[in-house]
């Protein structure tokens, strides 16, 4: 105990420096957690959130008795996983590629252009996509579809294309920002490794596969574990705005978030919406623990905790 206190005292200023970050974390992430009890209440305006009656698990019923639960859970999880893998591969590939560009100026320019889509609102993105896919005046129907001699495609009522469209949009929007972390990680690799490799006659490919990728592996693993927590959440804008909320597409675009929004927007029941969010969070938390445990099994040093 004595020794620990000494250690603490020695690093007191360093410890002090985490206080602002901790405060933000508590205020933004922990304080709102006390709202979870709202999921178990039937809120009315007179009694407010404190005195409204408890209703047990009634608020959860609508999620699990609905025939759609299987579909929305499948969509949410499989899109999350696909996006995670595709975006990871592309981000790392871009990071490596940008790292190989000699001209700093060009590297910075490419990087900026790749990040740009991340800052566009999904509503704007949805209209960009609409420009491509509008059945009458859309770009695709007037170019590619015409050249192939096909009949015009009614994109917003054909489910077959949407898993690809959504994956492309997600990658286009997210890959640039995802690459930033890996670029930073690669920049931190000691250049001596590469110099040694060059002397040994290693090709560029060998350098990438034997130095770059193994060195940034811990970063990849950490990011993946953290992303696992969001597997039961979906980007609402992507799944609601981009398909223009088109009903015939729901079999492939309906996720937990869009379902809850659609089902509850008229009822305005905060108890039921909280219940849905709680389910997502609990499942996400369980997944993080699970992923971490499996990483730990394989390689203890790489696990997050």
């Amino acid at each position, binding site marked *: 105990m004595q020794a620990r206190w000494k250690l603490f005292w020695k690093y007191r200023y360093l410890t002090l420096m985490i206080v602002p970050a901790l405060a933000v974390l508590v205020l933004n992430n922990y304080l709102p957690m*006390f709202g979870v009890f709202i999921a178990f209440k039937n809120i009315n*305006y007179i009694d407010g959130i404190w005195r409204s009656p408890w209703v047990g698990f009634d608020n959860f019923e609508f999620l699990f*008795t609905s025939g759609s639960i299987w579909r929305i859970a499948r969509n949410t999880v499989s899109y999350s996983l696909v996006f995670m893998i595709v975006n990871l591969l592309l981000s790392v590939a871009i990071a490596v590629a940008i790292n190989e560009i000699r001209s700093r100026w060009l590297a910075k320019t490419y990087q900026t252009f790749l990040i740009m889509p991340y800052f566009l609102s999904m509503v704007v993105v949805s209209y960009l996509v609409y420009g491509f896919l509008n059945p009458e005046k859309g770009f695709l129907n007037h170019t590619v579809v015409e050249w192939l001699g096909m009949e015009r495609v009614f994109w917003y009522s054909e489910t077959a294309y949407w898993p690809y469209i959504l994956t492309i949009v997600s990658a286009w929007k997210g890959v640039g920002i995802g690459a930033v972390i890996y670029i930073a990680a690669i920049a931190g690799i000691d250049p001596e490794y590469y110099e040694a490799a060059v002397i040994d006659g290693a090709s560029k490919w060998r350098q990438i596969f034997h130095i770059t990728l193994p060195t940034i592996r811990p970063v990849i693993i950490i990011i993946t574990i953290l992303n696992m927590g969001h597997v039961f959440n979906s980007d609402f804008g992507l799944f609601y705005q981009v398909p223009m909320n088109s*009903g015939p597409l729901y079999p492939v675009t309906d996720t937990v978030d869009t379902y809850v929004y659609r089902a509850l927007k008229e009822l305005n029941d905060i108890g039921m919406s909280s219940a849905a969010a709680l389910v997502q969070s609990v499942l996400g938390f369980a997944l993080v623990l699970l992923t971490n445990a499996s990483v730990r099994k394989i390689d203890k040093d790489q696990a997050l905790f």
Partner: protein
Amino acid sequence: MDIKTKKRHIPALALVFAFASMLQACAGGSGDDKGASSPPASSAAPSSASASASAAPSESAAPSELAPYEVSIVYFGKPQPDDALVEAKLNEFFKEKINATVKLQPIASSDYKNRTELMMNTGEKMDLVFTASWLNFFGNVSKGAFVELDDLLAKYGQGIKDRLNPLYLEAPRMKGKLYAIPTNKEITQGKALTYRKDIVDKYQIPIDSINTMADLEPWMAKVKAGEPGIIPYYVAGGSGNFGGGFMMYETRGNYRPIGPAPAKTPMFLLDYKSSDEMKVKSVLDPEIVDINKQEVGLFRSFYEKGYINADAATSTTTVNDLQKEGKIWVQAATWKPGADIEMKLATDSKYDYVSHVVEEPIVTTDLAAGSMFAISRTSKDPDRAMMVLNYLHTDPYVINLFVNGIEDKHYKKVGENRIEPVADSGYNPGTSWVVGNQLLNYLKPGQPDDLYTSWEKFNNEAKRFPLMGFVFDEANVKNEITQMTAVVTEYQSIFTGAVKNPEKLLDERNAKLKSAGIEKVQAELQKQIDAWRAENKK
């Protein structure tokens, strides 16, 4: 080693939980504090200049006896640059009459429902709140958002009572108690097919014999051939207002929607002319399924023939915008006396319109409760809120100040009851139908002199729906309605014509509605209707 690390985690976890419960206590404390400290904040210190000397005779207490109070008015309207000027003028008036001031809080239409419900959830102080059946009024009443108004209306709202058609006050009631005061205007609306007059004249279209969508077909073909710029029939399937199959039940029978209509799509129907025991039919009923199938089949054939816009499933462009561009020659619209002129004014006066009414206007609970003001339970002085509302219903100066702005600045008077709005004047909120008594609004260019007498006649002659006054309480079937809403939104686009095989999809939808529990909702609805009829001897 492993066991050791685990053990070390236990105190850490305990600490997290301890911290958590501490925070919870804090949060609880501050919550209670808020409850206790907010009232004083709003009850302003008594001002010395409390009342102006003039003791104007009023229906309520003399101004000198009343403490100053600010009445906030939350309403459906686009914020205007000159809101503050109008507010100042209103304050002059109310200060003198009832020692009150008002605070105008316009909220734009797209935000209105979300923002006001958020304000209700957080318990923000509001006095007068615009509400309506289509803004979840009855749901908010059952959650306790508004105060009861029967006593207040008797005490301070005599002027409202004298002027409103008594039928109005039967609608906004829950368990017999009044919770809102309807705006005085046309009490109901019929539905009509409204045409551009120049097209009707050009093609000699016999509009009085066109009563269903099917009757329109040959004329769609003619217009498509002769007027290349015009969309023969426009459908905005992507807009939130699209409920699908406008008027199909009405033009194919005497069915009228009743009970919950998730995503504006009727689920339960009642033949209002039938003499039997008010038996509700759901959309699963074979007769209704048949109507639905004919309708979706018809729309699909229109779509395939190119009569309906190709982006019908997703389009969100409003009909009004397209009317201004001259792309619309016919549309389904609500109808009341003067509707054609109103439509002309709303679309930059480019074209004249003519209508043929295809659905008899009858007064339902939802229509009579289509535009109202309620008093929030967070009001600190509901009495004064009612007094302000009473003036808005009875005093031509105040109501015209509210909806038209300041004379000579925002409008010019050109007759006793007639005005000419000043273009780009900084005040044109379009709130005639929202606030107070529209029958006291000055007439605008194009509106006929007898507009309001024709509305009064229309109101007096309007036929009442047999279940007028009945309100469905959805508390027992919330889960089912939630699921039905999700199903309905998924299949809404089958009514646009833009999807293949709509008949098959309709069966699919109905199967899903069944598993979502539509039959349970129907039973509950029927039970409540029977109970209501027994109670009201109808």
